């Protein structure tokens, strides 16, 4: 940066002046915009009268943030970005070998995940680690798995599905109902839940085969809502909004995680703690995630996976090459739904309780956001996006210090959606193709070159 701004030391002064001017303007605009929304609040007093409560302090914070933000952007961020761009253009296109970390990223990531529970356990002890393993570990991995599942439908086949949570629900309720009513174990029900979800994926697939774009999105959205409404209203079976509780826990091939003499702790001579079950669940969902990734990577190199991506690029061309687009779409729906079902049955077993409230549209939206944010089609990008979005939400819960700033009533989680939205917008402006915008080809003749996101399509069906 220094090299570029040096010749224009004289203009630095004018830059500051310009920044001050723009920042003042922005501050005034912010004041005008927020003076009625934030500066004044309508409230009721003790006598039930409507009164105006001024909040000048809060308004001042808004204005100051706007001023400082605009100043920083004009004075520092913009020159820095132009300088960086100039430096980038000036530098010859260098093709340095990717670093060790970059080359072995997925292996290192898996290793880190495998080592995560023991490290956390040794750092925080059995009780203190619950939060990190459960809220941060398992929770994020569930979303990684869901997003990887949806990625098959949206990222690869290019079919915009807004009702993905329906398959999650089918998996969860399949496990809940079948394990309570028939006493089947998790290991039987996991594949069964996957098959049932896949079946529902095909049921959804048939009516939407001829739909494209917006219409497809609306119908899948409706499908998600129908499933949720059925769960609410079919009270004899699902107990409606009360949900189903007392869902049996998962056993380690018959060894239960409880205080009984045959329990895990007794057998291995360990002190009784719920942490072992959580660690077990962590490894289980990690395994399920790896299975999803493995299958997705394999499928992409098989004709069916290539046909999905071709479908995303151009459906008519697919048909002209003798590809049956009906079965191709249905398999995408079915396999995507199957992974949703796996995740659902895991979710039910982990919570011990399912209710329709867990399967609202917002969940579909979050999963879809993760896929889009990660870069459609890229497993690594999606995993990073899941960590950022789900981990970010969990992190907000932890930010107690914010209470000292904004007062004791302040609950950071409530701002989650606002922050989500802002993060999404920023992300889409900075990297419109998601974290990982390029596509890795599934085969190569001479050298593997990633395909820039500007050539790939988002799909339209």
């Amino acid at each position, binding site marked *: 940066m220094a090299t570029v701004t040096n010749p224009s030391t004289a203009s630095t002064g004018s830059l500051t002046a310009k920044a001050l001017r723009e920042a003042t303007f922005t501050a005034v605009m912010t004041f005008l915009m927020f003076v009625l929304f934030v500066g004044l609040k309508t409230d009721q007093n003790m006598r039930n009268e409507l009164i105006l409560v001024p909040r000048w302090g809060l308004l001042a914070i808004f204005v100051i943030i706007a001023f400082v933000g605009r100043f920083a952007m004009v004075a520092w961020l913009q020159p820095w970005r132009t300088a960086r761009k100039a430096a980038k253009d000036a530098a010859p296109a260098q093709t340095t070998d990717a670093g060790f970390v970059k080359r072995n990223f997925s292996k290192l990531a898996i290793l880190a995940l495998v080592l995560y529970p023991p490290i956390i356990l040794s750092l925080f002890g059995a009780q203190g680690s619950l939060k990190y393993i459960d809220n941060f570990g398992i929770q994020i991995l569930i979303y990684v798995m869901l997003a990887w599942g949806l990625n098959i439908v949206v990222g690869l086949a290019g079919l915009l599905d807004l009702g993905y949570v329906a398959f999650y629900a089918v998996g969860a309720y399949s496990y809940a109902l079948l394990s309570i009513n028939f006493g089947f174990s998790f290991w039987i029900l996991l594949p069964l839940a996957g098959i049932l979800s896949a079946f529902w994926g095909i049921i959804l697939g048939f009516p939407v085969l001829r739909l494209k774009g917006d219409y497809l999105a609306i119908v899948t959205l409706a499908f998600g809502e129908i499933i949720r409404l059925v769960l609410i209203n079919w009270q004899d079976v699902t107990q409606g909004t009360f949900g189903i509780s007392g869902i049996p826990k998962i056993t380690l091939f018959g060894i239960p995680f409880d205080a009984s003499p045959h329990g895990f702790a007794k057998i291995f001579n360990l002190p009784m703690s719920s942490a072992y079950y959580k660690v077990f669940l962590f490894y289980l969902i990690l395994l399920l995630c790896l299975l999803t990734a493995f299958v997705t990577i394999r499928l992409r190199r098989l004709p*069916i996976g290539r046909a999905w991506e071709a479908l995303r690029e151009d459906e008519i061309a697919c048909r002209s*090459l003798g590809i049956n*687009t009906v079965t191709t779409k249905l398999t995408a729906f079915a396999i995507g739904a199957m992974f949703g079902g796996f995740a659902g049955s895991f979710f039910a077993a982990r919570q011990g309780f399912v209710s329709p409230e867990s399967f609202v549209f917002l969940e579909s939206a979050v999963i879809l956001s993760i896929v889009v944010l990660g870069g459609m089609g890229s497993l690594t990008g999606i995993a990073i996006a899941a960590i950022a979005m789900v981990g970010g939400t969990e992190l907000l819960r932890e930010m107690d210090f914010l209470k000292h700033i904004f007062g004791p009533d302040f609950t950071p989680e409530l701002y989650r959606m606002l922050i989500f939205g802002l993060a999404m917008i920023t992300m889409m402006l900075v990297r419109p193709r998601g974290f990982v915008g390029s596509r890795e080809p599934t085969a190569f003749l001479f050298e593997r070159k990633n395909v820039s996101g500007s050539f790939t399509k988002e799909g339209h069906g």
Partner: protein
Amino acid sequence: MSAMASTMNNDAILKVEHLSMRFGGLMAINDLSFEVRRGEITALIGPNGAGKTTVFNCITGFYKPTMGMISMQQKDGKSFFLERMADFEVTRDAKVARTFQNIRLFSGLTLLENLLVAQHNALMKASGYTVLGLLGFKSYKDASKEATEKARYWLEKASLIDRADDPAGDLPYGAQRRLEIARAMCTGPELLCLDEPAAGLNPRESQELNKLLRSIRADNGTSLLLIEHDMSVVMEISDHVVVLEYGQKISDGDPAHVKNDPRVIAAYLGVDDDEVETVRHEVEEGAN
């Protein structure tokens, strides 16, 4: 003409009989009959809006014709009625492949991947409909290698081999046309239908294309049916020309015959029907 028709019948690969296609009040094709003979390059020409692309869409199953019959006769004697088949079946079972007037490539896939997608059905079978492939069986690996070799062959033939690992959307226009033809050939067709393959090409690219088309016919035994506007291309490479105007056939024969047909000249020069006679006289006098 009738004597010619009888010899045609013996080795016709595609027979279009009394084909009509109506869009609302518009008769896009009206009672069209013609044949494509095996091992020949047949050109379908006509002014803009004559219904050429519509004929292609009927042959390849993208449109269901209002009336008429389209039959395909394969080398081994199997025959298919294309108007009864779905678009993907026409390529998969009847072995009729096509390209599009406005190029339709998988722009985000590499050239190699484009050609592998074209071999979907063969690879699908080899991968045991995904199951065996997912388990990593050797049969799929072999088939996959074979498919890559076939792709390499076509990339070389279309002189695209040095761009094999680049995205198709990154190619210049002329190369995209050649890739689309190579991709259609990877489906292993007996009849290849090309919709204006030379449109937008410069003379050098046009020559390359002619070479590619001739070698497709000579080396691979594929018959060709092509729509073309450029008369010089048509005259140079086609063995047989069918001329359409307003959805009806106005001429049919070898290039020399069609070139001198007064109705064709009238159609291309935009002469009224009653002036056709005068044009015919002029042509005949010119010939004498």
